[in-house]
C-alpha cells in the first residue's frame, strides 16, 4: 500500500515571507515520483512541482522548491516570497498509483 501524510491541515504566512509545507510518504516502489499540486477555490488542480525519487538534487520551480529526504521519506514544499495568488489547498502526491495526502490549506496574510 502507498500512503501520503500531510500533518498540517492549515498554514498561514505573511505576504512576501517564506512558508514550508510538510509531507511524508510511504511506498514499496523503488522507482517513484512525488508531486505537489495546488488547488485554488476554483478547484482546478495545478501542478506545482515534481521530484523523481532517483534524483538527489532537490527540484526547484521559480519561488517553489522542495526538500526531498529519501531515507526519511519526507518531501516538503518551500514557497518563497509568498504572494496572494498562492492561497490554495496544497496536496502532496506519490506516483505510481497517484496517492494524495489530505491537503494543507494555505492562507496568505496581506
Amino acid at each position, binding site marked *: 500500500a502507498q500512503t501520503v501524510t500531510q500533518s498540517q491541515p492549515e498554514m498561514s504566512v505573511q505576504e512576501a515571507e517564506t512558508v514550508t509545507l510538510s509531507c511524508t510518504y510511504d511506498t514499496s516502489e523503488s522507482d517513484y515520483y512525488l508531486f505537489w499540486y495546488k488547488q485554488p477555490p*476554483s*478547484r482546478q*488542480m495545478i*501542478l506545482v512541482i*515534481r521530484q523523481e525519487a532517483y534524483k538527489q538534487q532537490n527540484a526547484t520551480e521559480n519561488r517553489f522548491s522542495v526538500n526531498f529526504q529519501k531515507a526519511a521519506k519526507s518531501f516538503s514544499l518551500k514557497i518563497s516570497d509568498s504572494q496572494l495568488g498562492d492561497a490554495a489547498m496544497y*496536496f502532496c*502526491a506519490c506516483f505510481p498509483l497517484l*496517492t494524495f495526502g489530505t*491537503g494543507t490549506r494555505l492562507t496568505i496574510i496581506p
Partner: protein
Amino acid sequence: GAGVSQSPRYKVAKRGQDVALRCDPISGHVSLFWYQQALGQGPEFLTYFQNEAQLDKSGLPSDRFFAERPEGSVSTLKIQRTQQEDSAVYLCASSDLGETQYFGPGTRLLVL
C-alpha cells in the same frame, strides 16, 4: 486541446437517477484517470485507462460506477442509481505515458 475539459461542471441529481460525466483529455494523451474528491479531502483514485483499455478499476466504490473510453480519447464516468454518498467532485486527469497528470476542472455532483 489546450487542457483537460470536463462536462457538466455541476450536476444535481435526484437519488436513484443515473448520471454521466464526460472528460476530454489533452489531445494525444494516452493515459486517463478518474478521481473522486469528497469535501475537504484529497482526490481518491477510481479508475485508469491506457488508450481504450481500462487497466485498473480497483477504486470504483461499487458496481453502480462504470467508466469507458471506447476510442481512446473521450471518457465517460457513469453512475447508476445515484445515492447521497456519491455527492463529490469528480476529477479527470490525463498524461502522456509519463508520470505527470494534468487535471480538468472537475464535475461537482450533488445527489439530493
